[in-house]
């Protein structure tokens, strides 16, 4: 009788331990996954910002060109007064 109780208790203990270990592992995995996603998102944001910077420079250059052209277009030298 006692032997049966010891074996049952041992099995329960083992089962509980395995359960706890599995649950812990799942938490660890989920955390690692979330952190990986954060790193990935950070990279993506960085990339988008770089692209924006490049585009902004291009736009500024174009606007400068337009301003220069505007100066030439509004120039009335040589026109009849």
């Amino acid at each position, binding site marked *: 009788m006692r032997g049966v109780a010891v074996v049952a208790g041992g099995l329960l203990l083992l089962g509980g331990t395995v359960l706890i270990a599995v649950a812990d592992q799942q*938490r660890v995995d989920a955390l690692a996954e979330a952190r990986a996603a954060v790193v990935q998102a950070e990279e993506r*944001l960085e990339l988008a910002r770089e692209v924006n910077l490049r585009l902004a420079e291009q736009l500024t250059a*174009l606007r400068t060109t*337009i301003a220069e052209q505007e100066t030439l277009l*509004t120039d009335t030298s040589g*026109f*009849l007064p």
Partner: protein
Amino acid sequence: MIRRLLSVTIVAAVMLTAGVVGRATALDEDRAEAIAELRSLAQSIRTAEMRTDHLGGSIAIAEKDTAARAAVLEVRPAFVDEIAALTAAIEGAVGKVDTSAHRASAQSAQQSVLDERKNPATVVAATATVHALIDKVGQDIGSWETAQYAAPSGPAWASSGPDGYARVRAALDQVGGGAVGLYESASCAGGTAPACANSGGFIKYRADIVDWSADRLNWAMAHELAHIYQFRVWGALTSSDAYYSAFGGDAEFLANCMAVVRGYPGSVGCDADQQAWASGIWVGAVG
């Protein structure tokens, strides 16, 4: 012994449970933190990507604008060259033909060029307009010169000589007859009249009037020019009752009165009502 062992086991189990629960809580908190960070990053990425789209659109518009302006600017020097040529033509026409209408057209073309930002065809069309204006000014000057120096047949002067002709010509120009042809002829009233106007739009003068005083010459030319203006409204004039009641149907009297109106009075005067009526003939209006 068993009780002690049980106590130790229970304490160990409680501590172990506490440890396991604590670790689980800590892991959950870390994960929640990471997810919150991920959300905020996702928001930032969305904003950045929207900005990328916006910048891309702005660049496309700006590139289109730049290309259109460059195309307009490319055809502009040709227009400026034509304007310079027209300016020269207008300067050359001073004192010969009235270029105010040409100038106004050119200014309108200039304005359309100044306002144009997209379509080079507008500038090309304006260039063509200005080119046509140059041709028009040239033609106008040509016809003025023809009217100036060419008599219907033969030379403009005979015995009065070029200097004498120039004196009469200057008097006619002075009184506003710059566009009216002039030549020497002894045929006016069979040679008894010093000058006359014909309905062909020419004024003839007798050689001796080149020695007249400037005032008398100016009056004579204003008088003859008045006849030219009379011829232009001849039909309306001869059917006007006022012409007969105020001037007795006398074209010479009316011509004298018209000269008075222009500021070149001769020996014959006329009253204010007659002057008012006569001034209408100068602008083609028969009262």
